[in-house]
């Protein structure tokens, strides 16, 4: 690990004050069109509907929730792979929510993504070295041939693979190794933020731990921040400093890891925790099983009032009509629930 990288990261850290990323009132709405020739908008899917959070340098924020909660859409909007309908995305002091393509190109050197599917996200016709080095070429920072090759070897070694693997093709690698290749590619441009969308959920259990550990080691070495999007609450707990729980396009609770897992406050967070079985049959036999009914409703027709109220075991009259705000509790936690108003 050459010193140039660490000093570069340090210099960047000092460059701006405040959080690395601040998302304010982010909305991503998709129109639902009807008609073949003459199209008419008949409805709107509010996939992300007013999401706000901050992420510090070197920090991991876990973004959890069930399918359709908007966690992946939030990640894609921050990377500007989707256009936000409203809101601010302040990254390294700069609001990138309305950046055009040219300006986003520069930003993407500092903000990279690791995908869920280690099979679909690597081009099968490219050698591993070229996959890892492609961002350097695209952004014109590859340098001469020797420098380029040295950087690829360094990146490949950084993720725990052997430099001579650069000459091989993705199909020669297992799922866990492919995910390492995807991580090496994300690291190529020295980003300060990596958005990880379900990065371990396609991997076998025994391999997940290898990749989770790699993420944590790289964070320590390179001072990376992660937005770690996942549905597995146990993995998220292990890797995150803070966690945001999403439901139907909104954050319902955001807190530090220990706050959230010790004392979840939002009934949805409580339900999620209760639903996750703990690998200990003696403990499971005595654990109260509070299983909530119903499924996540369609984002096309979110319920009025609190979006969780139809499934909430503690819903009151106010919950059916008034949409609760995400209220800061002053201790680093914010909850959107009338029970904690």
């Amino acid at each position, binding site marked *: 690990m050459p010193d140039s990288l660490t000093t570069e990261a340090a210099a960047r850290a000092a460059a701006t004050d405040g959080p690395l990323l601040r998302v304010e009132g982010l909305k991503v709405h998709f129109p639902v069109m009807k008609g073949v020739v003459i199209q008419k908008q008949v409805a709107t899917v509010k996939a992300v509907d007013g999401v706000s959070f901050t992420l510090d340098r070197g920090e991991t924020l876990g973004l959890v929730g069930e399918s359709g909660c908007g966690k992946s859409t939030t990640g894609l909007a921050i990377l500007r792979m989707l256009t936000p309908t409203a809101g601010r995305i302040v990254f390294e002091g700069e609001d990138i929510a309305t950046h055009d393509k040219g300006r986003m190109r520069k930003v993407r050197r500092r903000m990279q993504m690791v995908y869920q599917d280690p099979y679909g996200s690597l081009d099968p016709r490219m050698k591993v070295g070229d996959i890892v080095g492609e961002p350097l070429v695209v952004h014109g920072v590859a340098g001469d041939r020797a420098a380029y090759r040295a950087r690829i070897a360094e990146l490949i070694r950084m993720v725990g693979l052997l430099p001579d693997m650069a000459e091989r093709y993705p199909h020669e690698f297992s799922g866990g190794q492919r995910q390492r290749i995807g991580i090496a590619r994300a690291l190529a441009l020295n980003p300060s933020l990596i958005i990880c969308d379900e990065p371990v959920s396609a991997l*076998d*259990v025994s391999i*997940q731990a290898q990749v989770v550990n790699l993420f944590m080691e790289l964070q320590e070495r390179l001072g990376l921040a992660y937005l770690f999007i996942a549905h597995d609450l146990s*993995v998220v*707990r292990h890797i995150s400093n803070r966690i945001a729980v999403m439901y139907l396009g909104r954050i319902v609770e955001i807190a530090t890891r220990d706050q959230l*897992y010790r004392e979840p406050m939002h009934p949805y967070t409580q339900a999620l925790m209760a639903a996750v079985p*703990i*690998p*200990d049959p*003696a403990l499971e036999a005595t654990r109260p099983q509070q299983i909530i009914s119903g499924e996540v409703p369609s984002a096309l027709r979110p319920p009025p009032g609190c979006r969780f109220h139809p499934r909430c075991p503690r819903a009151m009259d106010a919950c059916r009509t008034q949409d609760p705000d995400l209220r800061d509790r002053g201790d680093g936690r914010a909850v959107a629930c009338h029970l904690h108003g």
Partner: protein
Amino acid sequence: MPQHTQAAAGTPLLQVRDLVTTFRTERGKVVAVDHVSFDVAAGETVAIVGESGSGKSVTALSILRLIPNPPGRIEQGEVLFDGRDLLKLDDAAIRAVRGDSIAMIFQEPMSSLNPALTVGMQVGEPVNLHRKVSWARAFERAKELLSKVAIPDAGSRLNSYPHQYSGGMRQRVMIAMALACNPKLIVADEPTTALDVTVQAQILALLKQLTRESSSALILITHDLGVVARYADRVVVMYGGRIVETAPSLDLYARPRHPYTRGLMASIPRLDGDTGSRLVPIEGQPPDLANLPPGCAFAPRCQQATDRCRQERPPLQAVSDRHYKACFLDA
């Protein structure tokens, strides 16, 4: 559960003996299930756990003779169910068993349901087929089953099609179909893997409750050690097509004896675990079935492997009552 222990004392409901299932592939013959033997007692829930390529699903499909041939073939073994060897039945006889005394629930409810038939017809079909009753009676039974799996307004939902159901509701339909003929054994292959966590908890609790009510036995195939801990009475751990350890759940989690089982338990983060420490991964890659080592399949990843482990295949041996492991080490 008293009825379980009682049943366990007699002849097991299902005895799988020395089962070998192979597949022809481009890279030669692959032994997907390699001399696997285990029992399931009446009313018991047995989990088969393992990672991809461990042979857990192929074992389940072999029990019901659902292995596509070619490329697959059940090469040897016995599957004794209620005193009969299912592997020796002719096609008509095995069809009479499937969906009647043994039912199966698959992972993907959308691709296992027929999109062109109403839910009522699909749930009623096994009743009509196996119980030889009229369609009118079969629909009555379908309605009863749908309310049993807590599908609201079951009567009018009978005429809906699968695409009009949500993922969780479709899996409830699969359970209703499985229960249609009061099976003695239900084989569920990753029944909740495609579902959200709160829905997973609902479906598994429902499955457990209904199997308990009907005292059906359940083979639960999963990769999730948490699900096993919550729902299974006994566990079979597979690796590289072989059983590496089997024990009652409480015993297995309290005293895992095979290095692979121990490795798995150390590598998974827990909701109530220690957050300061790193996970302890199992190093190396999952086994390549086309290229297994001559000895123990886990030897290349095992920290304690000896020369003997690399050359000789460890047999499944008793370490205590009902607890078996396939490992030469004394640990």
